[in-house]
């Protein structure tokens, strides 16, 4: 007899990057409403998931924030194929309502705040391993602010935590996933402005089916490429492959 409690009807587990938190929950709800079977969603850092899949984690679909992880797993023969691009991430500058930071797509406000020493703490995801952190670094370098900003940086373990830090009273702002900035829970406490896509390498978000994926997982995988899903991704600020922003 298994020690485990009854499992939720063996619904497939979908592992997804943290930046998809709000978008994917909405898509899954819609999938279910349209007659799809039950799914179990789990969000976290893409790197962690990749590592867990290498160790045999029973994720049937992997939606990575960084396509490198999908390629890496596919090359090891752990996925059914090299998957498909489902969205391209964008980054946004956010600041809590109480922050003195003025927001603009050209980062003039940030430059000004830096010049006046009004930036004590600025949050991004850890560029060492988080794709959104890397993108934020590239954007800041492009704007020529990286070196000025560097001493103030606080690094989130993933982009969600970076958003947490950026909107807390202890930081004056941050660069996080546009999808998170748009989420109601975040937009209630913080302002945001989208940053130009050209300032950083494209955040190609790739998904793939696991080798052992079942029917439900395959159906959802297909659903993610369909119109309702694409609409939701767009609403949460993602650029879709084949469309321009």
């Amino acid at each position, binding site marked *: 007899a298994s020690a485990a409690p009854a499992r939720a009807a063996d619904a497939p587990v979908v592992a997804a990057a943290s930046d998809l938190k709000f978008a994917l929950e909405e898509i899954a709800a819609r999938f279910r409403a349209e007659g799809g079977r039950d799914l179990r969603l789990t*969000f*976290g850092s893409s790197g962690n998931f990749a590592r*867990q899949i290498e*160790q045999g984690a029973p994720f049937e679909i992997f939606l990575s924030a960084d396509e490198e992880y999908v390629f890496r797993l596919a090359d090891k023969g752990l996925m059914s194929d090299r998957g498909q691009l489902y969205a391209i991430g964008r980054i946004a500058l956010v600041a809590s309502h109480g922050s003195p930071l003025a927001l603009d797509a050209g980062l003039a406000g940030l430059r000004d705040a830096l010049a006046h020493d009004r930036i004590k703490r600025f949050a991004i995801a850890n560029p060492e391993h988080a794709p959104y952190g890397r993108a934020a670094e590239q954007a800041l370098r492009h704007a020529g602010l990286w070196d000025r900003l560097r001493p103030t940086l606080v690094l989130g373990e993933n982009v969600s935590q970076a958003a947490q830090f950026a909107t807390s009273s202890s930081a004056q702002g941050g660069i996080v996933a546009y999808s998170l900035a748009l989420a109601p829970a975040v937009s209630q406490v913080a302002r945001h402005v989208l940053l130009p896509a050209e300032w950083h390498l494209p955040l190609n978000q790739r998904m793939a089916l696991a080798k052992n994926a079942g029917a439900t997982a395959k159906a959802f995988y297909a659903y993610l490429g369909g119109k309702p899903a694409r609409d939701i991704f767009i609403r949460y600020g993602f650029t879709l492959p084949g469309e321009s922003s």
Partner: protein
Amino acid sequence: MDWPALSLSLHLALWTCAILIPMGVVIARTLAFRPPRAKGLIEALIALPLVLPPTVLGYYLMVLMGNATPFGQAWAALTGRSLVFTFEGLLIASVLFNLPFAVQPLQRAFDAIPPNLREAAWVGGMSAWTTFCRVELPIAWPGLLSALVLTFAHTLGEFGVVLMVGGSIPGETKTIAIAIYDRVQAFDDAAAGIMSMFLLLFSFLTIGLVYALGGRVARRRG
């Protein structure tokens, strides 16, 4: 409130206690009554989980129990399931991680049993097993209770190891601690707050209980 996560955490905590307490009793009794040469070494080994970052411990446990190791393969061959990312794997990790919390109070409790009480039981005709049940256990009871409640509460609160070894699969390895963290990450402070309060109250009550009981025993001795 994430009820499946809470139910999972309670399951995990109960099973951890069910496995760890008897194990802890055996280890603690051995260290207390028949201390082996390597006593200090064993105690240091048992205490290691106290000082290793839980995520790191979890990472190595994941690798160790994974399908790439002989241990993981043997398990998979025997049970038909892999060990990582299952409740069973979580349970093993939880048992290891809680080892010091269970063994230390138990060892103190068994250490405090005067040797001549056991001798008195033997010359009174009690077998080793009867002596254990009727003399050692009742006298070590406060320590046992302390081990039980600490293990239980600490398992409820465990985060790092579970995150790595479990993979946070809802209904299977997503515990209440992970659920709270998830809610925090999702900016859902209200839900996180309610769940935290619940855990906090629960912990406070159980620990208060243990200390009240421990205190009463200490007063009776003093």
